């Protein structure tokens, strides 16, 4: 596997959120999902710059839905993780799991 397939922590979080939401994955929902699960706040701009980067790398694809009134007549941008994204995510997960092996009790106790 090439080096460029490495994912940053926040990229992994974003990809996981898109996967969790499935067909309901669009900007605001993704942001709320991340905020609810990680209990950290996230600005709209920060999320989109990561999503744009992930799309440029080919890990996600996006499309626009119909305009809705509660958005001031603007469209939702929906996201979906592409197979290559899922593979990279899995690789990241494996790398992390390998590194974590045997350390979990120690680190958790220390925390």
């Amino acid at each position, binding site marked *: 596997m090439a080096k460029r397939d490495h994912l940053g922590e926040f990229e992994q979080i974003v990809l996981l959120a898109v996967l969790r939401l499935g067909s309901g994955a669009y*900007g*605001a929902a993704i*942001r709320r999902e991340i905020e609810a699960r990680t209990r950290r*706040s996230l*600005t*709209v*701009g*920060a999320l*989109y*710059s990561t999503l744009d980067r992930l799309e440029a790398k080919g890990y996600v694809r996006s499309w*626009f839905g119909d305009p809705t*009134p*509660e*958005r*001031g*007549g*603007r*469209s*939702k*941008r929906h996201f979906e993780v592409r197979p290559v994204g899922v593979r990279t995510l899995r690789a990241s997960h494996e790398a992390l799991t390998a590194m974590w092996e045997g350390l979990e009790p120690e680190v958790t106790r220390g925390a």
Partner: protein
Amino acid sequence: VARDLPWWIRALLRAAAPATSEEELGDIAEEYTRGASPVWICRQLVSAVGRGSPRRASRRNAGTFLSQTVEDLRLAFRTLRRHPGFAFAAVAPIALGVGLNTAGFSIFDAIALQPVASPGANQLVTVYQEFKGVKKRHVHGARRMFSVPEYRTLRDGTRSLTGLAAFTRYWTVTLGGDSPREVNGVLVSCNYFDVLRIVPSLGPGFTAATCEAADAPPAVVLSHSLWTAAFASDRAIVGQTIPLNGRAVMVAGVAPEGFGGIDVAQVSFFAPLSMQEMLEPDARYYLDPDTSWLALVGRRTDGTTIAQVRAELGLVAEEIDRRQPGRTTRLIVEPARALSMPEARRDIFQLVAVLGAAFGLVLLIACANVANLLLARGAARQKEIAVRLSLGVGRARLIRQLMTESLLIAGAGTIAGSLLARWSFQGLFAMLVSLAPEQVPALRLDAGLNMHVIAFAIAITGVTSLAFGLVPALQASRLDIQALLNRDTAGAGRRATGWLRGSLIGVQAAVCTVLMISAALLLRAAYVTETLDPGFAYRGVAVVSFDTRSLGYERRQAAAFRQTLIDRLRALPGVESIAEAGKTPLSPGDMQTTVRRSDGEPWQEIDFNSVSPEYFSVVRVPIVRGRTFTASEGAGPARTVIVTEATARRFWPGEDAIGRTLRMALGPDRDVALEVVGIVADAQMTRIADTTTPCMYLPAEAESADGRYLLVRSAADHAAVARSVRAIARDLAAGLVVSVAPLEQNLDLWRGLSRVIAGVSGSLSLVALLMAAVGIYGVVAFVVSRRLREMGIRMILGAALGDVRRLILRQTLRPVVLGLIAGMAGAGAASRVLESVLFGVSPLDPVSFAAAPLLLLAIAIAAGLTPTRRLLTIEPAAVLRRE
């Protein structure tokens, strides 16, 4: 529920981060619809700006306008923090200059631009009129005011105003009681408080019963401060009567605390217009259609514009014109301001123009100082700038960066200056009041930070940063990289900056010269007013003033009272002579009428005074020819006149004026012939330093109820005279307020005025001189440090230290001298504006025109010589070794 983002949030987002996409906006709008907190929205805004952060901007080699600015600001801030000495030297003069200007502006703003003290003041308008084709018009206040019938027509005819109220100029009446005192008030229409939405803090105020009804008893509303001071805040005062000018007047209410009318000069009571005739028994004009005495203030209805009010009242005014054939009226409708009278406003604006120019010049000097500093720094920063240029930063971008630094300096200066202004304002104002003559009435001035002042400060920041920053920035960025690469740092671009520095010093010197010459002239004028001989004897004369109208006296009673008083006073030990006069020498205000020699000649304005026969001996103005008045000439209307020598020369040049006739206008088509019976020596009786304006004396009419002054010449000291006069007056009429003042006090008025003007201009020019000196010092110090090597070589080659110093001084002082000459020319033009307050000092006074530039030159030489002391320490060999 669909709610789009407010427009300003969208605008901010677009400005801060133009890259913001529609879906981002959509997400933010969605959260907004769900009720996101303002804090959350703000965070989105801030993060949007952050996305154009410096790091990313440099990576992409672009960035938004805003992010670049943030970057520039950060850079400028770091630069200034790293050079605290430079920062202080640059910020301090700007702070001083801006502080002065902001303080000056906030005083001006408080006087002339602030809305009046009334809730919803921005709905208020003032109405004045200009009319033509009117033959007869009496004026009590200003010609642009209205009569009661005119006021009523406008009030009843308007639909665009919810109410139109009238008020008069300010009156002085006597409040009787155990210790009678004079208080100031205004007469107002019954709806005055309603229109202004001022609710009395006590009592009903003016109601139908106390004001409008034909048989309404005389009533007043007291100001809160008078209620506190004179009635010990007695809550039972409402409904009781108090003695005003000897008449019982009912108290209808007490105005809320802090309200003293809507003019700058504050008053102590408000009375209905109908009380005019009661307060001035000998002048009845309450319902007279041809008397100007009312100023009008109205409140616009919601949604009506000033233009609509103007149009509508204009139609109503045509009705007034129809009643008086030949008359055309034009109304002046303006938003109500503290200084509402057009005449007063014009005077203030003229004053402000002169003062503003002087303050602006000080700021200009400050800017020249900082510009010079920046030029010097630009030279010292050549390396840094060269590096940036060679790294591919564009020149425009570089200029913007340097300008941002200037803006930061100006901003810091403005903030420091505004704080300075705010703290020093009270002190400054107190100083002005203490210098000012005592007769100035209480003023309402709350000059603080408000939107006007803030807008002014922001504007001034922008202008100053451009003024001092643009040229140095252009200069610094026009760098010859080739020359720098050749490491000839001393030579690169020096000729051009040297020229610039020179002209900046020249400008400073010129401006400073203008200010210093003006100050010198004004100081000389102040000295003249302190020491002058007005041509009449003002020592040992007491001015006794009283107003028998306050007792309700008719003409005969008034005359009898005056005669008894004079007789009693004459019997006092030490009293030599007593005279009566309608106006005392050099007292404020003009008494003027028009005269001509014969029919067919144009009318000429002339100052006049009505005096008793003893007047000239009391003030010791010699009668050059002819005689003074006789006692019988005061018995009826005036038939004789005494003129000054200058007047005689003006009207009958080369002839004897005695026995000639002068025709004085009495009305539109009535005049009276006056025979000249005497000629008196010229003296400064009306205005300081003016003996040539035509002036004449009429015999004081014996039977008159008018206020009149007694001039008492006595050998006893003033305090003793004053005590006796008061005792006698109390004995004759207990309720009469009598004031006794030395005649010299009239001079104090002029002296006070002169002191204030000289004080202000003196301090301004001192600040200017200080800054110019610092500027010259800075430039010479810079030149010396840059040319140490050259000087070292000169000295090795045999130049004496003195020669080298002279060389440097000659080169730096050349622009100073040029500036001096330009400044003297400028001062010659500027001093004409000051002529009216120079009191006889010529606007081209040679002493001032020589002394001020010489002083400046001396200071400039001293400031320039000091840094050359560094040359003393030169060790030529060491200098040469330096690269």
